Structure formats: C-alpha cells, structure tokens
C-alpha cells in the first residue's frame, strides 16, 4: 500500500464516519428515543450492582464508583464501535449472503465499506452510558473524564477489531453469521465485569484470546494506581489486535474473491 493509498483510505474512513453520524440526524426523534431506551436498559443492568453494593461495602477493594467506571467505559467503547462501524455486527451476514460483493467493485477498501454500511441507533445510548455513570455515580474529575474518554475510544478500536476477527470467520465457515454477534457479546460480558479475583490462567485468557481486560478493567486499575506498563498495554493492545484482525480479514477476502467461492455461487 502506497502513502497515497493510506491517505485515501484514511480520508474515506473519515467520510464514512461522518456519514454514520449524519444517518442519526435523518431521524432525530427516533434516534433520541432509541438512545434513551438503551440508556435505560444499561441503567437497569447497573441496578444489579447497586443492589450488590447495598449488601457489601467493597468487593476486594472495589467500590460502586469503580464498577461504575468499569461498566461505563465498557458500554461507551461498545457504543462507539457499533455506532460508528455498525457493520462490525453484521459483516458475516453480508459475506454469507454474497451481498459483500457490492463492496468489492468500488474504489474504496472493502473492509471500510463493509464496516460502515450500517449504524445502530441504540449504540448511541451505550456511548452515552459511560459519561452518565462517570459523572453521576463515580464523580470523576475533568482529567479523569478525559482519560476515560480516551480509554473508551481505544476500547472501541479493540472491540471493533475483535468484531472484524469473528465476523471474518464467515469467509471459512458457513452458518457463522447467527453466532458471530453472540461471540461479540461474550467479549462484552467479560468487559463489564470486575476480574481482579479471577484465576491467573483465566486472566491470561482475558488478555489474549478474548481481550476483554484491556477495554475497561485496566483503565480502572490505571485510575487506582497509575503504571507506565499498564498504560502502554491499554494504548497499544487495540492496534495490535487491529493489525491481526485486518490481516485475517485480508486472508479471508483473498479466499472470497478466489475461485473457491464458486461453490457458493453455484
């Protein structure tokens, strides 16, 4: 890829992000209602934590405010990833149905087109959950708010990368479209839960195969005790996973555009 290609891709991506945001403005009232509903949905889920902290003061040193930061960061990261790049949840459907062909004949990278083909209005409610919980429950300072916003953006990159990776399985395995979204929710269910009491082997799993630990758990730990190594992990892991995900997608794309897909067409 030449420097010009990279610049072109970046510009196209930015344009597609803008388009995603404009799509919300097409139906502002509907977007507002759906976002409010998702916010309500997350508030109800968070209510379980309020009930638990009604029983205990701390969970091995974690207070309700820490869980609010964790839950909020995870929700915002997921909301940003699926709000801007809605395709991260239905790329496998496009591949399986053959509709992904539409993305191949345009002068834009197919992955960028595939990812930005749709947006979820609910996702913006998820994206708002973080700031609401950070301010109302955790009472973070302006500096902490900025850090958490950065962490959520990095988390969105990681969730998006994981999404690309599992949706790309559709290039090799048939019938995965139904399961891909569920696999993404496995990651999310780990993202929004404290994991400081989990066995070491399980933690290793949550920082490698299902990289949930980088999205919200490490940022909370960074707020509690800052460490350079942990910060580097939070900042670099999303891009490492993005590289892997794009690599796997390109491999799959080569297979999709090759003769091996003729059987699908037949």
């Amino acid at each position, binding site marked *: 890829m030449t420097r010009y290609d990279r610049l072109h891709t970046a510009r196209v991506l930015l344009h597609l992000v803008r388009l995603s945001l404009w799509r919300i403005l097409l139906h502002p009232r509907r977007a507002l*209602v*759906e976002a409010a*509903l*998702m916010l*309500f*949905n997350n508030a*109800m*889920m968070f*209510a*379980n934590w309020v*009930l*638990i902290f*009604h*029983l*205990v003061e701390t*969970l*091995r040193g974690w207070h309700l405010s820490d869980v609010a930061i964790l839950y909020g960061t995870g929700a915002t990261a997921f909301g940003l990833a699926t709000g801007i790049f809605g395709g991260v949840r239905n790329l496998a459907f496009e591949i399986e149905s053959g509709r992904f062909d539409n993305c191949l004949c345009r002068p834009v990278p197919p992955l960028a087109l595939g990812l930005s083909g749709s947006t979820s209005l609910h996702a913006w409610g998820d994206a708002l959950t973080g700031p609401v919980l950070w301010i109302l429950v955790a009472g973070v300072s302006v500096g902490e708010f900025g850090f958490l916003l950065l962490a959520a953006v990095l988390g969105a990159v990681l969730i998006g990368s994981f999404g690309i990776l599992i949706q790309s399985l559709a290039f090799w395995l048939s*019938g995965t479209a*139904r*399961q891909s979204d*569920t*696999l993404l*929710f*496995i990651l999310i*269910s*780990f993202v929004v*839960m*404290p*994991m400081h*009491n*989990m066995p070491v082997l*399980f933690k290793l799993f949550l920082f490698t195969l299902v990289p949930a630990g980088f999205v919200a758990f490490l940022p909370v730990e960074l707020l509690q005790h800052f460490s350079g190594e942990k910060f580097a992990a939070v900042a670099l892991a999303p891009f490492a996973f993005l590289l892997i995900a794009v690599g796997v997608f390109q491999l799959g794309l080569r297979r999709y555009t090759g003769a091996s897909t003729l059987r699908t067409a037949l």
Partner: protein
Amino acid sequence: MTLSWLSAGGYFLRAGVRHSRGEVVFEGVYLLLMSAILMTWINVWAMTPDSVLASFDLSFVQIVWYVCCTEIVAFSVPKLHREIELMIYEGRFASLISRPFPWLIEWLAGHIGQGLVFLLFFAGASSLVALAATGVWLLSPSVLPFLLVHLVLAQAIWMVWMTIIGLSVPWLGSASTLYMIVQKFAFIFGGLLLPIALYPGWLAALAYATPFPAIFGVVGEVVLDPSWGHFVRAAAYQSLILGASLLVLLWLWRRFVTHLLQEG
C-alpha cells in the same frame, strides 16, 4: 372438541421437540455466552464476604446454584416476539388464523415442546458450571422433579409474555422496544442475579407486585428451600401467574384478530 384440541396440542408439542433437536447444535455459542455470564457473576459472589451471605442464611454454594438455575430460564426461551413481529410484517397471519385449529395453541404448544429440549440442554450445562465452581452437587434426586416443574412453568409464563409483546406490534410498530423494557424489569424484579430476599424491603415488595418472580426467582429458590411446602406454594403461585398471563394473552389475541380483520 376439547379432546381433539388437546391431541393436536400434543402433536405440536412433539413437533416442537423434534424440530429443536436439530437446532440445539446451533445453541453451542449461546452455551458459551451463558457460561461466560455465569462465571463473571460467580466471581462476584466469590468476592462477597461469607458473613454478608450468612446474615441472610445463605452460603456461596447456594447463591451460585441459585444464579445457575435462574439463568436456565433466561437462555432457554427463544425470542418469540421477534418471530411474531416478522410474521406480522410478512403478512403470514391472515392464512394462519383461517385454519380450523386455534393458532395460539399451536404456537404455544410447539414452542413449549421446543423449549423443553433447550431447557434440558441449558440445565445440564448450567449445573456443570455450578458444580465446577462450587465442587458441590446441590440438586438431590428429590429436588430435581421440583426444579423441572418450576422450570417448565417459568418457561411457559415467559413465553406467554413474549407472545403478548409480539402481538402488540400493530399498535406499537415494533416489538423490540417493549421487549427490552419488559426483559430488564423481569431481570431486576424477577431476581435473576440475586434472591429477592436480599433486596431492600421496598424493592422486594415492588418485585412481588409484578409477575416476574414467578419466572426467575421461584426457580432459583428451589436450591434455597427444597421442602415440599415451598414447592407446593411456589408451583401454585406460578400457576396463578400463568393463568393470569394467559387471560391477558387471550384478551390481546381477540383484539389482534379484530384489528387484523378490520384493518389488515
């Protein structure tokens, strides 16, 4: 008439069982999701001091088995509201209501049959997670029939509610919004993740004013109080809620058919 309806209902129930035996293979990923959710909540309860649970006459083992039992219901019921929504938008209802057999019975019997297979599938997996987490098998052979009865009744109530949500599409435009709200209320007021006995008094009273404890809480309470007395009371409570829910469904179904015949 009633006998032939019963016999046809039994046929659809068996058909549901047969249909879901093939589908269950695809539920593997849901099994992973359920295990992930269970593991994260078990971790939370493992961090809770024993003294806190002891003050409610509970132990870590009981609370883990409680959550594992309630999650069986949450995972074993298919998203019926979505199916109905699709049937409405695709215009398939007109042909369904003109059959000589009531569609509602066919629908519920078929899905209860299907749900039975999913229920056994998720119950097995959930029990294994609980056993792995606690090292204790809490379900004695005498408790298993109690649990099965509660699970089937809970599943039937949840299915009736999902059908109610699905049939409200002509008035609401979409079922997913109402489903999202009802599901979250059901999780909180039903005691999905912690027994209602642990809630603050006012919230527990509010929870018992809703039908949701009959869907989740009652199922989990089997491991907290496995006595005959509790079983009879809980099953009667679930039957009452199921009856009331069916009445609401029948009322809505009549309005739905009228709406369909008058406005298409």
